[in-house]
């Protein structure tokens, strides 16, 4: 009897280790992923997937447009941290800056994963290089955002694999820019100019070049910026839409003018919720808006009479069922009529970089190098001509400006052209105008140190190697 029992114990012992091995049946683990070409593609999809959840789905708006003279917190804003951003009373404890930091670094870690692991996969070489290039564009975009928002930030370039070495020191601003430049330059050599239909939305060579141009412009490297813009124009890949509205319509948003956009679709997990957050609240039957992210009167006034861009960007009435409903100005760029009753799920993309930006960057760079040349005028006026939308006698061509007034004119053009596209804050900061403009806009609390966001307190508490930005 005892023997049998002991045999039983002995027999079971043999297979125990097998029993205790954890084999996740429903969950992939990194050790069995990144084996095939489709794994490489799926990894890259996840990198992109970071962009349209949270990050570029409203949060980016809060620290690039809401911060400026363009955006204001409406009645739907209940979050004191957003109100603090609106009033320049923000501090290191702010859930929106937490998200800014967290979402960017999450995206970077995803990109690092692709950049490190895909090269080892046995697959089509050209596709492999392309995927790594795409990941580098996204990583560069995210670091470019971070360095402009927070200044000196930790430069993490490999995926996190263990609890070791998680406290990373801040790299210098120059080092971060160098890395961004390197990633984009690498990507330029391996990415195609365009994709076939099923791959539309991926990062292209144009995206890499355009971001490089933006980097040079930010760094006041005018010659390099001009060169890059010219390269893009000469590639003959892009052109302006006749109608500005086409940029923000689901059917046309990926054509002609789009260089790199965050892709949204009108479905539950990939919708653009900037629509619901900016729509009027309880004023139009069937349209459930929050009235949280609102345009300022300043912005509305910045549009010249007859500017097509105004009605695409800002509206104060809507026709529904033959009746006109009016409300205070709401911003309508991401309004998707198809998502009317499910207004959380707009399918309108968020443009990160479009051709009009290349034209205006080029104009700005040329002006900085040689003053307002004919070529520079032509570039700005090309953008203004489109904004007339066929009307005559409105938005006259620019002419007879000095280097300084041309600079002002381009900046203003950029404001009305790119409102709510995450451009305004960086323009104000890089041109050194932020404090003056925001003071004039009535934000008494604004201080020079506000050009950078505070490093999240939570991150400083967790990583003792970090230093807070001056002033906070």
């Amino acid at each position: 009897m005892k023997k049998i029992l002991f045999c039983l114990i002995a027999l079971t012992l043999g297979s125990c280790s097998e029993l205790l091995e954890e084999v996740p049946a429903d969950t992939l683990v990194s050790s069995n992923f990144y084996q095939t070409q489709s794994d490489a593609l799926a990894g890259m999809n996840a990198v992109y997937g970071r962009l349209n959840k949270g990050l570029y789905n409203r949060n980016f708006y809060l620290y690039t447009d809401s911060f400026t003279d363009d955006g204001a917190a409406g009645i739907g804003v209940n979050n004191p941290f957003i109100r603090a951003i609106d009033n320049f009373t923000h501090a290191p404890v702010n859930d929106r800056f937490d998200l800014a930091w967290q979402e960017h670094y999450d995206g970077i870690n995803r990109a690092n994963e692709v950049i490190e692991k895909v090269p080892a996969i046995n697959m089509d070489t050209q596709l492999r290089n392309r995927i790594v290039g795409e990941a580098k564009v996204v990583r560069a975009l995210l670091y470019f955002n971070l360095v402009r928002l927070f200044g000196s930030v930790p430069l993490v370039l490999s995926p996190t694999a263990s609890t070791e070495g998680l406290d990373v020191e801040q790299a210098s601003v120059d080092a971060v820019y160098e890395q961004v430049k390197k990633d984009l330059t690498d990507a330029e050599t391996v990415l195609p100019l365009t994709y076939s239909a099923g791959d539309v939305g991926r990062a292209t060579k144009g995206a890499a070049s355009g971001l490089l141009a933006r980097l040079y412009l930010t760094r006041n490297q005018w010659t390099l910026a001009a060169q890059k813009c010219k390269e893009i124009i000469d590639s003959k890949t892009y052109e302006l839409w006749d109608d500005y509205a086409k940029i923000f319509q689901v059917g046309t948003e990926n054509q002609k003018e789009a260089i790199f956009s965050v892709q949204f679709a009108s479905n539950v997990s990939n919708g653009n919720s900037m629509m619901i957050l900016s729509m009027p609240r309880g004023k139009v039957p069937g349209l459930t808006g929050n009235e949280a992210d609102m345009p300022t009167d300043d912005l509305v006034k910045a549009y010249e009479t007859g500017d097509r861009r105004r009605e695409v960007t800002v509206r104060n009435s809507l026709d529904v069922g033959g009746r006109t409903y009016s409300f205070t100005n709401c911003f309508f760029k991401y309004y998707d009529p198809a998502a009317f009753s499910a207004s959380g799920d707009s399918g309108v993309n968020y443009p990160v970089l479009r051709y009009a930006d290349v034209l205006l960057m080029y104009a700005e760079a040329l002006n900085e190098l040689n003053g307002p040349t004919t070529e520079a005028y032509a570039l700005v006026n090309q953008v203004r001509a489109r904004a007339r939308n066929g009307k005559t006698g409105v938005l006259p061509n620019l002419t007879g400006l000095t280097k300084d007034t041309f600079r002002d004119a381009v900046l203003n053009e950029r404001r009305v052209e790119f409102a709510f596209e995450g451009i305004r804050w960086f323009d104000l900061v890089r041109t050194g105008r932020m404090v003056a403009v925001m003071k004039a806009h009535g934000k008494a609390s604004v201080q020079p140190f506000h050009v950078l966001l505070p490093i999240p307190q939570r991150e400083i508490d967790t990583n003792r190697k970090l230093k807070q930005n001056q002033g906070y």
Partner: protein
Amino acid sequence: MKRNAIPNLGLLTVSLILLNSYSGPAQTTVSNRQPVAAISKPMADITVSGRVTDENAGGLPGVSVVVKGINRGANTDAGGNFTISVPDLNAVLVFSFVGYQKREIPVGSQTQINVTLTPDDQTLNEVVVVGYGTVKKSDLTGSVSSINADQIKKTVNTSLDQALAGRAAGVQVTQASGQPGGAVSIRIRGGNSVNGGNEPLYVVDGFPIYSDNSVSTSGANRGPATNALASLNPNDIENIEILKDASATAIYGTRGANGVVIITTKRGKSGQNTVDFETYYGAQEPRRLIPLLNAREYATMVNEARVNDGQAPYYTADQVAGFGEGTNWQDEIFRSAPIQNYQLSFAGGNAKTRYAITTSYFGQQGTIINSDFKRLATRINLDHSISDRFRVGNSLTVSRTKANIVVTDTDGGGGTGVVLGALLFQPTLPVRNPDGSYLNRSDLGEYGNPVAYAEQVTNISTTFRGLGNFFAEYDILKDLTARVSVGADVLFNKGDFYIPSDNFYGLSTKGVGTVASVLNTTWLNENTLNYRHSFANNHSVNALVGFTAQGSQVESVRASSQNFPNNILGPNNLGSGATVNFPNTDNRSWALVSYLGRVNYNIADRYLLTFTGRADGSSRFGAGNKYAFFPSGAVAWRISNESFMQNQTVFQDLKLRASVGVTGNQEIGQFQSLATLSNATYVLGDAVAIGYTPARFANPDLRWEKTVQFDAGLDVGLLKGRVNLTLDAYYKRTNDLLLAVTVPWTSGFGTSLQNIGSAENKGIELAINSVNTTGSFKWTSAFNIAFNRNKILDLGKITEFFAGGNSGHLKVTNPSLIRVGEPIGRFYGYQADGVFRSPEEITNSAQKTAKPGDRRFVDVDGNGVINALDRTYIGSAQPKFIGGLTNTFAYKRLELTVFLQYSYGNDIFNYNKIELELPAGIQNLGKDLTNRWSASNPGGQYPRATTNRTVEFSSQYLEDGSFLRARNVTLGYQLPQPLLKRMGVRNIKVYASGQNLFTVTKYSGYDPEVSRYGQTNLNIGQDYGGYPLARTLLLGLNLGF
């Protein structure tokens, strides 16, 4: 393991049977011979009569009188008299009666036998079930509390865990939701773990179950979690033992740290074939309703808020004047609801086979409309002696439960649940439109009609559970017993959820349906050898070794779609939803492989030693940490058995106990040590593209949380056993906390589960049972009280972190701060200081931009500004002490039991109070808000009306959650024996009972028993639109044949 163990068991069973076949038949013949002999000499019968009396010389009715060895017996009548015929002069009569010591008397030449039975010294001879065996209570070295069927039956319990409330010292039971079948959270001697599970391990008839509601519910339902243990019928329970110290729990190793609740269900007893029918029927209602503004007061406030902010009033003066009381939405959702239970049980058997079969139906409607819980359960417990040495048996229960859930315990705003909705929805609006359809939404706020939300939403959770454990036991030697058990727990849950498109919450989705199911299969194999031996006069040893393996697989599937053309089919035809949501499937397993041993050593009934050890291997942990060993040791000294104590009469029992040991906690879910990936989606080429993103990075070092516990106890029996007292003091230190450690976001992750930090719990428990009076008026009391102090000792690199418990709607963030040196569950916020009443007060304050009528806060750091640095600890959800008191008064056949339960010194964070004190003009308020500050009411105690909804979490919203509650008051009457005899009935008892009859508390909410987050340890003591507990009145009948 699965492949190998089962055939091996088969082999073992076969061999046991083979062994048995040599000795079995012979013995059977022997035991059959006697009755045959008795029948062969019927004429020799001798008639014996007599009277059985109790210790006070009163006749004892109903005493069983049996002729030893043969199947012949009688019962005493109302006067204690009996008559029985015996076969011969060698016969022995056995007198037995519940609560009295059994007596055997040889008949000899007597024909008249008068017997006095003496009461059992129950407390000392009681057998206590401990893990993998039993011990006499007097031999216990560990800290164990017992609750018996009598006590359990006195309260109405939907699930067995509720039966623990207030009964055992150091056991805190929180009914997280009043939803019938709703979740219960239990802490034994405080919570050890921060991020890991803190619920005790349940062992039902030997089958260990960790009651993790998240793996036993499909995930389709919204609202409070349902309780997995509600699928077991609490009336099946014979006994509950709560193992508290390490000496008792170490035998459960890695699952012992949170305490162990051992549940033994009823088994048949030989010689008594009984049929019992038990039923009760009652009505439940909410304890109280919260006074709210009526329609006119509400409309006045709405206008005031708008006018104060320079906006136009919403209602005209005529409209305001026209409003009366309006709709009290609480009246619309709450109701008086029936509760009923029917149970039929058959129990009994003979010397070889015993059985207990019960079948029961329990039906409870909730006090909120469209909520209920039903359970149909059957149990079959069998024992059979194949031979004197070989026994087999089983416990098997099969049940089906079905709960209709209403959505409660949610955040406010767009997802406002039914209870919160009833508090906040405009009293100016009717429930239904003139055409009879539901009014859809409020005209001002973001809320849907709470009545429509309760009535229109399908939210059903159906559970089937089969829990069976089969055993074979063989006495290899006289002192050595082998036992093998094989069991399975199969739980299937299906959730159906549907919000129709005409409900406010279904508007944006045009109807959304979700159906999900989970199949949770756990198997168990336990093999033990038990050796009991006495030697050298007064030494005895009881040793146990064992090998066990347990494994579990949880498989779930979930489908959802929305945008339905109509609402006719509800969740039953998801294919008709035009938009298909992402489906989800899961398949997760875990396994435990364990070796265990225990030695109890008893010297002269004076010195008792226990050593226990268990080596557990768990699949949940990192590759390098699969196995761990959990040892414990205990000593006890029965001073009362020392020779020098034999001449005193004060102490009948005096025992000192001390134990130390290590136990573990493995409740972290699956795959936590692996670098798993999670799904991500994007849009490419206008189509959804699927991707995988890292969800966590690997931690191969992940291991158990270990708790070292010291316990010292004293058991005292005084006044001839009329007073029994148990006192315990303990210290628990939990190291290697399974902590979701905050890591820099630059890693791409927010937290990583690591073994970092430590926490302690220390406390004192006292339980006193006393017989206050004897004789015809009997009064007994049972009292218990427990003090536990919790403290975080170390959190690794950080010294504090916010524990969540936020409201996205109210933008209340971080109300709870976990900090080294402080207990878990402390609330962190501003110190409220009333409202500003004048501009002068504002000028002299730290809130210069405030207006009269704004809330005022204490400038804690005195720097002249109110900011985040002024937040401080403002309360604690941990009670200072908890306990219960039961008094039972019996006069003849009438018995009154009053069971009080209490908790003292805990604060509740009342989210409802924030909502009800927010005069923003979009939602209703508490009646007190009529006393809000305004120019015309400059003495107002509540804030002025303003459309600004900014909320700062402050002490204003914390309330004293102490309570004293009459958990149960029962008056019962047992019909007299002569009457019963005439009716041919063994027993009839009728009773009236009140559950939660009254509750003394300062808490302003519905009920002080709250837990918005169910079983979590981080955010205890929060109330946000929770389903309140009911007060119940019921009538019951027990019928025995």
